[in-house]
């Protein structure tokens, strides 16, 4: 099995899966009926994309494996999502800041993955671009609304952006798998996305009358399976059914 390709797919897919799970937690708890449905839609878009990635990842194994095995039956250290997406839904500002900081990256990333030499990944990316474009529009609008809203919304969204900022740099961290996949023309050169990303993010933040945090100190580890303390709780929710009723089917 191509271990690098497998790990490469996992990093992309796990990030989608975990963010989808986080947003799914808000189902029935959104601040209004409309935002509740919107966030759940985004969650389902991300989980839908995750399924395509995991089906592809499962096909790489010699033995029989399913997308569910990959989604539900790994241990915490085997998940390769970035730390940003596992951060909790502290308040609506965090939900939107996390979403925005991810969406800007996600859309840029998919546009590059679309021209990958790997036809399956290119096809998944192509399909995901439309969804990611809407996500980016939705979360950017909210950043502007909250930033340029009331004094309270401004303070809260600024706090969320400041606190989540430390997880942004990890989006561009090149793992061994990334380097190998870029060499083969399959993967996306993340380093090249970094400057355009911070420019795009800063543009929206400024429009939202928010301050762009100064970059000093960043967290990383997710891509190597070293997660923040929130991850275990998230996984115990995510994996509950498969752990309680192994091999269950709907």
């Amino acid at each position: 099995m191509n271990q690098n390709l497998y790990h490469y797919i996992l990093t992309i897919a796990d990030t989608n899966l975990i963010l989808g799970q986080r947003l799914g937690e808000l189902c029935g708890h959104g601040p209004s009926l409309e935002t509740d449905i919107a966030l759940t839609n985004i969650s389902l878009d991300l989980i839908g994309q995750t399924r395509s990635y995991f089906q592809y990842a499962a096909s790489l194994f010699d033995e029989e494996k399913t997308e569910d095995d990959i989604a539900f039956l790994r241990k915490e250290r085997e998940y390769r999502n970035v730390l940003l997406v596992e951060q909790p839904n502290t308040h609506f500002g965090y939900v939107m800041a996390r979403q925005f900081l991810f969406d800007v990256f996600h859309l840029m990333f998919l546009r590059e993955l679309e021209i990958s030499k790997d036809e399956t990944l290119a096809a998944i990316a192509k399909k995901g671009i439309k969804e990611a474009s809407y996500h980016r529009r939705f979360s950017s609008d909210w950043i502007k609304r909250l930033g340029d809203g009331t004094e309270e919304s401004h303070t809260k969204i600024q706090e969320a952006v400041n606190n989540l900022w430390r997880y942004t740099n990890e989006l561009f961290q090149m793992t061994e798998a990334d380097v190998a996949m870029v060499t083969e023309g399959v993967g996306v050169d993340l380093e090249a996305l970094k400057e355009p990303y911070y420019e795009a993010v800063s543009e929206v933040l400024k429009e939202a009358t928010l301050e762009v945090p100064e970059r000093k100190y960043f967290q990383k580890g997710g891509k190597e399976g070293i997660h923040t303390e929130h991850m275990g709780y998230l996984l115990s929710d995510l994996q509950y059914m498969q752990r309680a009723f192994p091999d269950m089917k709907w």
Partner: protein
Amino acid sequence: MSDKKKNWPLWEVFVRSKNGLEHRHFGSLHAADAEMALENARDVYTRRNEGVSIWVVESKHITASNPSDNGELFEPAQDKVYRHPTFYDLPDEVKHM
């Protein structure tokens, strides 16, 4: 939600389900402004592939007839059957009428 001043205004949503058809009233929702209303309408009313175009209009801009006026508004038309174009024979060659 108890403080009415804090509620977003109500919007009416019209969706065209196919090119060539007209926009039809689908329902209403709350949103802070027109752009948010459009996004909310997209998420609430078109997530099952119902539409190709959305209109939103703030409900307060719709002037509605008063149900208590129904007598004077609509009843006079009830006995004027001659206003329906049904009093002449169509030639067989004319189809789809």
